[in-house]
């Protein structure tokens, strides 16, 4: 019941042909359809619903919205009541607002980001099927990403003004959408200010993450790979394709993820990562990172922050 997992992200891109080439050839997604407005819908080989990424033509980069899939259609009504009771306005978008997708519940997080919930999206199946499936399909391109796993949203935070939408979002996701907290960064003189949080509905360390910044935006969308070796190979693919790598293969302290960060041709940051991290559970104690050790939390090996990684987003 309730939210199951991330369903799709809708990104703005400034050069559609370059964007499609990137998501197909570097990440290994396939284009599933293009609508009349020129929006392109793509999915990974291991995903079974019709699409997990929408690219929309624009004069700038960034996130249009992120959508999560709920288990039952009636969950949309239950969650609408909970979201509105929390004090967030919702709009119901009828079936067909997005192709191959049922009705959606639309609202804005306290940070301003648009989120949508839906229960139905056309089933097309994974590329290996469900009967005696092979572990992976032939003809994979690039990194061969399995699925869109999570995203990280930069959330307006200005403590002197009393603004902390990281904390607001975290409370909203917990109370209205029943996510649970897995890790957090606590800062400030008393070490009690939530400057970043990682939250889950599945059994992985994060289905969404929030980090404080001067203004709200998109930090990255992340794709799942099987192993550390696949992370290395993904970096090779990026080098082959002259992709701008932001952070070469390394490990996060936070979530224990093995990772690479890079940019799509419009400057939207992508991540390919591997590693389960740990089994995220509602009764697992929350991990806390303190301000003096945050460098190790972000990049575990060097313990040093990378300015482009912490300060640049769309």
């Amino acid at each position: 019941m309730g939210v199951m997992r991330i369903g799709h992200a809708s990104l703005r891109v400034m050069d559609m042909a370059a964007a499609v080439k990137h998501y197909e050839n570097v990440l290994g997604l396939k284009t599933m359809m293009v609508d009349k407005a020129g929006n392109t819908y793509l999915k990974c080989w291991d995903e079974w619903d019709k699409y997990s990424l929408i690219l929309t033509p624009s004069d700038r980069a960034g996130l249009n919205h992120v959508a999560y899939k709920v288990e039952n259609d009636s969950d949309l009504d239950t969650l609408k009541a909970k979201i509105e009771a929390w004090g967030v306005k919702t709009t119901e978008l009828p079936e067909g607002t997005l192709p191959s997708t049922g009705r959606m519940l639309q609202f804005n997080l306290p940070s301003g980001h648009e989120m949508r919930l839906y229960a139905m999206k056309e089933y097309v199946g994974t590329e290996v099927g469900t009967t005696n499936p092979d572990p992976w399909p032939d003809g994979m391109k690039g990194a061969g990403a399995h699925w869109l796993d999570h995203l990280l949203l930069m959330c307006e935070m200005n403590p002197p003004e009393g603004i902390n939408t990281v904390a607001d979002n975290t409370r909203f996701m917990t109370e209205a959408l029943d996510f649970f907290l897995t890790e957090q960064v606590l800062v400030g003189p008393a070490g009690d200010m939530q400057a970043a949080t990682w939250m889950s509905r599945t059994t992985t360390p994060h289905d969404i993450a929030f980090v404080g910044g001067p203004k709200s935006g998109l930090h990255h969308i992340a794709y799942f790979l099987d192993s550390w070796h696949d992370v290395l190979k993904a970096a090779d693919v990026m080098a082959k394709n002259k992709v701008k790598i932001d952070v070469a293969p390394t490990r996060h302290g936070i979530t224990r993820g093995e990772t690479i960060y890079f940019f799509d041709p419009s400057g939207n940051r992508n991540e390919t990562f591997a590693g389960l991290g740990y089994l995220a559970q509602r009764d697992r104690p929350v991990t806390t990172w303190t301000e003096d050790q945050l460098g190790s939390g972000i990049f575990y090996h060097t313990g040093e922050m990378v300015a482009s990684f912490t300060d640049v987003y769309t």
Partner: protein
Amino acid sequence: MIFDSRTKLSVCIANTGESYPCALDESLLRGMLKLGRKGVRAGCVNGGCGVCKVRIVEGTVKPLGPVSRAHVSAEEERCGITLACRVAPVTAVRIEAIGKFERPFSKEPAIAAGTSTTLLTTQQEGDM
């Protein structure tokens, strides 16, 4: 780069007075990063994040791709403001870096103190 025989033009960064050679088919930012030089901040290097915003003070450049309207308005573009990652030199140029990093956690002294040293890390990374 001794082994790079391509024709290059000089790019002078007005803020620091430093100059570097940039190939005709290479963005001003890539040219700088390749040589491990500094002066213009580097982010996505793909026209989206805006941190490499520059004013073309002297000389002519040609566009290599779209720049985000969230960071460079049409009016600014007419006045010679663009992103260093999206233009290549046509003549020798003099540029002024005007992009800003907007730092998350900037109110936190422990982290703000660390940022000046990590800027160096980013610049070195661009050299790889």
